[in-house]
């Protein structure tokens, strides 16, 4: 079924300086990827020297996958993002610019399109300082690294590129608000988003709650209230709130959980390692699928840890057309799967790489 995607007709230029794989390259690319899936014509500017960079020994399959994921549905223009004339010429014909602060600084105000997102690593007084930083070091400054992992071991990053992608989502949100504005007063409006503010925003509970919290937020590891436990064929995330406790006791079915010391949250917090040990011992005889079904029947928010391979064929994802094959590269035999844009619009998939496939039949909307 063919539907008009919401940003069809809009032209977006995506330009960030810095090496491939750097935080702002990934962030601008994520914003552009979303806009491309929503129908915009997205042109990304790639430096001539970057083909060479992608042939370096440190550039591996992981980077290739990131590049393929973020470039889906876009056009590529080879050129120097630092070439003012070249970039300005493209921007004059665009409706939206997604740029880093270096590119933004080069461009005359008159050459900017109506909607601009400027991304940077830092905000505040030192927003323009040239401080070497990566997603990882900014995750450290924003406290996110301090929250994940074991307390007696090194802090741990979240998997993938969560920080850069969250910055990309933020720029998208700001641009979407500008595009929805019905009372626009200025010819050019600018969204500013920086990686450190986004990380602090994601990790907002660690600062405001610190003064009053019984235990300052930080890495809790095996003493965490929510943690990952082993089961017969892998792992499952033990996640629950206070009202879920009686149901969890029923699901686990081990009388040791009904001891007085576990009866209150305070009591459980004081005995978390022992509690997790009891539950894990029971779970080791059950598979993830069994636990998933038992959790559902007890209305418990436990989550089996699925691998990417398993998720591509997961019944829920299949029913929602969550994964679609990317256009094959020359010589590629097996289909390469990628997730679609994570929204269904009146029941329909909106994705440049996926076409416009119905994910379900919706009464009155087919």
């Amino acid at each position: 079924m063919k539907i008009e995607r919401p940003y069809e007709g809009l032209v977006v230029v995506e330009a960030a300086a810095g090496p491939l794989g750097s935080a702002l390259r990934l962030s601008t690319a994520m914003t552009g990827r979303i806009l491309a899936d929503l129908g915009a014509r997205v042109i990304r500017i790639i430096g001539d020297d970057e083909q060479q960079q992608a042939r370096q020994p440190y550039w591996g399959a992981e980077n290739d996958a990131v590049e393929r994921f973020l470039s889906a549905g876009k056009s590529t223009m080879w050129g120097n993002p630092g070439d003012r004339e070249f970039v300005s010429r493209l921007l004059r014909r665009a409706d939206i610019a997604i740029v880093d602060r270096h590119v933004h600084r080069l461009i005359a105000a008159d050459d900017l399109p109506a909607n601009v997102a400027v991304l940077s690593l830092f905000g505040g007084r030192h927003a323009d300082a040239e401080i070497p930083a990566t997603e990882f070091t900014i995750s450290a400054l924003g406290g996110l690294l301090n929250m994940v992992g074991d307390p007696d071991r090194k802090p741990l990053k979240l998997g993938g590129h969560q920080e850069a992608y969250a910055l990309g989502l933020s720029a998208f949100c700001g641009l979407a608000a500008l595009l929805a504005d019905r009372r626009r007063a200025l010819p050019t409006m600018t969204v500013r988003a920086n990686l450190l503010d986004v990380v602090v925003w994601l990790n907002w509970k660690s600062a405001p709650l610190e003064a009053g919290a019984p235990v300052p937020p930080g890495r809790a590891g095996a003493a965490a209230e929510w943690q990952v436990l082993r089961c017969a064929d892998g792992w499952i995330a033990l996640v629950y709130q206070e009202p879920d406790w009686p149901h969890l006791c029923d699901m686990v079915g081990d009388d040791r959980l009904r001891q007085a010391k576990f009866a209150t949250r305070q009591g459980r917090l004081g005995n978390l390692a022992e509690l997790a040990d009891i539950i894990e011992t029971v779970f080791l005889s059950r598979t993830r699928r069994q636990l998933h079904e038992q959790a559902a029947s007890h209305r418990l928010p436990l989550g089996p840890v699925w691998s990417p391979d398993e998720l591509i064929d997961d019944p829920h994802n299949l029913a929602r057309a969550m994964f679609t094959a990317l256009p094959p590269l020359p010589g590629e035999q097996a289909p390469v799967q990628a997730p679609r844009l994570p929204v269904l619009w009146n029941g329909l998939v909106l994705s440049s790489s996926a076409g416009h496939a119905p994910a379900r039949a919706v009464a009155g909307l087919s």
Partner: protein
Amino acid sequence: MSALAGYRVLDLGIITAGAATSAILADLGAEVIKIESPTYRDPFRQWTGEGPDPDDLPPLFRATNRNKQAISIDLKQARGREVMLRLVSASHVVVENFRRGVLPKLGLSFDTLRAANDRIVLASVSSQGETGPDARHVSYGSTLEAIGGLAWRTGYADEGPVISGRDVNYPDQVAAIFAAGMIATALRSVHHQGGPAVHLDLSQRDLTSFLVGDAFISASMGGNVGRNGNAQEPYLLQDCFMAADDAWIAVSVAETDRAALSALLDIDPQSSLHRLHAALSSHIAGMRGGEAVAALGRIGLAVAPVLDGAGILHREGAFWSHALQRQDGRLVKGFPFQIDDMPLAIERPAPSIGVDTRAVLAEVGGYDEREITALAEAGIIEVGPASTPL
């Protein structure tokens, strides 16, 4: 003037994802009306507060409900539903994150809302989507890290998966940003382009998978997708190292840094990565954290201390500015981005239950004083104490 000024949002969102989505819309200038019921409150209202004042609203509730008005309608009663639909007819957006099936059971399906207002945008912000065999499974943010593929990618090298946990609950945070952006996208479609009403099915599980999208590409190309600790391409070496004062120092080393770092560490530039890692670890262990950051920074490395809450606040204003805000002397969640000339701001605190019921029913619903009093006496609506003027 704000970007979304002139749009009215009816907010049935509770706890984090739904309420935080409409909080971003409110920060962007939309008129957001939080709807609770005489028989059902946002559970966040009951979550423990920090301060000594028992009337304090809990910090999590304050964070996700600032800039909103609040009304109370019993949607389980037919007359309450009528009130709701009259408000829908004068609004642009409905946001909800109830358990799947609850909204239709209340007689407020998308078809019903669309019959009341053929330009309405319904945003269903759910754990696992409107459809699919797991649609009715309950979850919190970290559940979705497990079932969406993020936990598979997070963890110490070759060890078990790890989740962000209760104090971060990562998927809940990003869900609100994306959902608010999609709602704005739908508003443009309806109100700039004359498109039909829109039902957005926004699944946090789908979003979590999307945000590890490259892992699925690697997996389907036969790659070994697992947990690598802190290592990440394209960096030659990336990890945390403990300094002499027990401070953790995060370092990313690019290929282009290798010569300068080898010189600093006095090792052969052709040394193995294992040797480079060991030498860097010894180097940092021999000095205080601040000294290590300064020394590595001088040769151009990306390096930073791993900060806790106090450390984050110490850098407020210098390196970040709007992620947290101060309201009545207390820190509250701020904004993930800013807009020049239309800055996002917190104009009013989170509201008490039903504090704006009377005004909203009069001004938006067109009810007169006598009708409002009758609805209140019949228990259809709940009228709170007088609102704080804007």
